[in-house]
């Protein structure tokens, strides 16, 4: 595995380069957006991890460039990830809020890559979910957390109020493509998918 890790803090870069080298594989560090784009252009990566506040180049450009080469992107943010963040474009494959642990990063990387390389497709009511593509078929992109929420709903798992932001974002995205499927809360059952009548 080869990882591009781009963050403006040298201590963070140094610390996490070492951790990710040990846990996942070769990690290339970039201190700013220019370095990150240059690395993306000249090398192949399995995944990009970029800080939202990376200087010199907007992180969204890095997302676009990486997605253009079919490379998933995890964006690091210093703010809580609400439903608004989950619906912005271009959408990364996952958001990670500071502070996080090395284990959390490693899990997110592995889970993202596993889904990106899977051939899985989900049926969600009247829409299909393209798991490796991280999107609703014919519709907007999804993050890793949203896909995990959907998988949990479809496999009988329980989605809690901690995933409220994801649920809101999913309903918004389903609404945008005209789907009649929604995620609703049922007494005693938690969240579940329902396909509403016309």
């Amino acid at each position, binding site marked *: 595995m080869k990882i591009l890790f781009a963050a403006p803090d040298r201590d963070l870069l140094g610390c996490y380069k070492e*951790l990710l080298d040990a846990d996942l594989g070769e990690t290339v560090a970039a201190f700013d957006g220019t370095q990150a784009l240059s690395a993306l252009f000249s090398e192949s990566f399995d995944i990009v991890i970029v800080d939202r506040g990376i200087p010199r180049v907007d992180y969204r450009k890095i997302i676009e460039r990486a997605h253009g080469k079919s490379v998933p992107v995890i964006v690091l943010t210093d703010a*809580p990830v609400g439903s608004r963040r989950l619906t912005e474009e271009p959408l990364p494959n996952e958001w990670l809020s500071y502070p996080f*642990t090395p284990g959390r990063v490693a899990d997110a990387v592995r889970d993202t890559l596993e889904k990106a390389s899977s051939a899985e497709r989900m049926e969600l009511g009247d829409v299909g979910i393209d798991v490796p593509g991280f999107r609703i078929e014919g519709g907007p992109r999804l993050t890793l957390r949203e896909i995990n929420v959907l998988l949990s709903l479809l496999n009988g798992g329980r989605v809690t*109020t901690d995933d*409220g932001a994801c649920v*809101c974002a999913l309903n918004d995205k389903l609404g945008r493509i005209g789907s009649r499927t929604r995620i609703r809360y049922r007494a005693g059952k938690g969240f579940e998918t329902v396909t509403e009548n016309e």
Partner: protein
Amino acid sequence: MNKAEKKFRLYAILVIFVLLTVLLAVINGVNFTMAAADADELTGMLADRQGAFEHKENAPDGTEAPPRDKDFRMGPMGPASPEMKASLRYFTIAFSDKGETVETVAFNVSAVTEEEAAEWARSLLNQKTGWTRGTYRYRVYKDRGTTFVTVIDQGRELLPSFRILIISAIGEALALAIGWFVLLGISRRIYAPLEEADRKQKNFIKNANKEFRIPLTIIGGDTELTERKYGPDDRTRSIRRQLGKLNELLDKLGSVGVFDDGDMSPAEVPISEYLAAALDREAEAFASRGLELTADIAPDVTVNADPEAIGGVIDEIVCNALKYALSRVSFRLSGENGYALLEASNDADLPDGSADQAFDRFTTLQNAKEDSSGLGLSSVKQTVRAHNGRASASVSEGIFTLRITL
């Protein structure tokens, strides 16, 4: 801060209004009272003279006319002025016991005819003294079986008093208007630094929240690296514990800051289920602390709100009760007219009264635990207000109650 400024202006102008009104009312009251006293002195003097300054040779009953001029003295002002008897407009009508007009003792007015004056006086026979038809003062008195009614015109004397009254009213209105604009300027100057301080506090909290996150991540990462190289020890374990506490504090700071910006994504939130889920989750914790837990949750109560925010509010309220209750906790959720009302009560060692200060940032009540940040309930109020709701807290007979309306 805007609300506080408006309140200050309102109360200040109210105080000015009350003070001015009382002062001017006293001044005008005294003025009119003195005018009435002067008029009574005049009617008294006329009464002493059987109703007229100038008499025919004998009084109506044939006795000699009373002496004259004794009460008048030199001087420019007041009813005792010698010029008064010439300038006073008045009439006096004498009546028999049966109310029949005996005589017009004096008639020195232009506003009415003698007949009209007699009727006017007859209408006053059952009174004693007072104002009649606005600016006329009257007195009814008896002398040797005859009832006299004297009516004097005080219009000219009252004119300055009415002018003063009108000028007072206009003056008060002007003073209030000018006062309002002055207060506008003063309150802005007073509150501008407070608003600035409040804004800086909010920015500090927001920035501190962001500025701390990356260093905490780095500390956690370096601790991990150290443990991998040298193995975990007490120091690294202590670092992890402290990191946990700091992360918790940051989460609370985060919720305090986020909703200042209105960064919300509203949706229909099933608050009944959120509360039930939170209580289910903490049921074991309540039981392990030996707390008696009761819940009365109306089903299907929903609010249009940010789901994460409301989840946070409920979690915080449940955790607060778990932390501070002595022996019992109760939760009540009801929905009325589109509003959700949530009440969380627990017994607590606190004095009776309002406990709204519990919602102030960095403020804890007397029963606060050592590790309390003073941010939990502050974030609750911030979130509730961002959703146009209300939050209040009170203590009554040893029961602390939080009330949230959404």
